[in-house]
């Protein structure tokens, strides 16, 4: 480094050595692993939060379909899943439900509710489904199975 008022070649050399010796120092690998786990957890939480906001107005209307919906959906845990991607479950002729939790978790839910609402099409993108940019700003109808606490368990989009 060149400092007109404080030139000191020896100090520059010493600082250069310090820099050289530090060059190989990197954050321990465990930090990256911890951060990636935390990032995944944060994304799941954020996604559920966004879904929760959209579902809030519909939740009140949904209580009446609770147990009936569960009876309708109960076969999903035994449904053949070989013909669909592993995280989808077909229960009728309409589009399959996307499991948002494990099938064991869904089957263990004692008081599930089925609710219908409108969600932004951009939500499809967060599930890995292609979205036509021309209609990305619009909303679409969706059915969602939620736990008694309001946690989304599975959802499907209706045309």
């Amino acid at each position, binding site marked *: 480094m060149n400092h007109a008022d404080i030139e000191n070649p020896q100090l520059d050399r010493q600082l250069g050595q310090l820099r050289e010796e530090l060059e190989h120092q990197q954050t321990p690998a465990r930090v990256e692993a*911890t951060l990636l786990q935390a990032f995944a957890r944060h994304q799941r939480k954020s996604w559920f939060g966004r879904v929760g906001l959209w579902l809030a107005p519909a939740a009140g209307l949904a209580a009446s379909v609770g147990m009936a919906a569960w009876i309708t959906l109960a076969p999903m845990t035994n449904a053949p899943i070989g013909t669909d991607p592993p995280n989808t479950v077909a229960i009728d002729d309409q589009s399959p439900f996307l499991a948002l939790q494990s099938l064991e978790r869904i089957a263990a839910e004692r008081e599930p509710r089925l609710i219908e609402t409108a969600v932004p099409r951009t939500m499809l993108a967060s599930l890995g489904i292609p979205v036509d940019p021309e209609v990305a700003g619009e909303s679409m109808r969706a059915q969602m199975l939620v736990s008694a606490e309001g946690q989304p368990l599975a959802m499907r989009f209706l045309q």
Partner: protein
Amino acid sequence: MTLIDPALDLDLMRKMRAGDADAFTALYRRHQGPVYRFALLRSGSPDVAADVVQEIFLGLFTDKYPFDPNRGALSSFLFGVARNLLLKRDEREHRYVAIPDQDDDDALAPVDPNPEPAAILFARRETEAVHGALRQIAPHYRDVLILYELHDLSYVEIAAVCGIDIGTVRSRLSRARARMADLLQDFRPPNAARQLEATP
């Protein structure tokens, strides 16, 4: 000047906020090294430096530390957060008195009479001595010196990181270098010492 491409950082930030884990990983790998080395030099402890890096990147995706691209490059922002975390740690552990409003010679003197021993291993004794001298300088001088000499930040970038004006960056750098030279003036590399002993 730093060689990090700000446009790529912005693109990765946008993807990270949309939930792209690969973008987050790429961002982390681009910036963890310099931030870690800054925290390592500043604290003298690999554990503290690792904690600081973890805290910063956690805060980046949770928006605990919201990054505003209009206020500078991401690399400067990360150094700034690291510096604040380290200052808070010093404060919490009563390691240093508050930073003075005015720069003066008293402020340059070390305030911590018993600094923690450094836990970094260096190959050369001379480098150990340089690091030892660096640790004897008060933090607000040390920060400027580390960022300029070891991370190639410009005066403008350092001013943004430390929240001071460019004139203060210049004067702190000048004083820190002078102090380092004083502290190291008695150091003789082992070879030189042996040569002196052998001289009749």
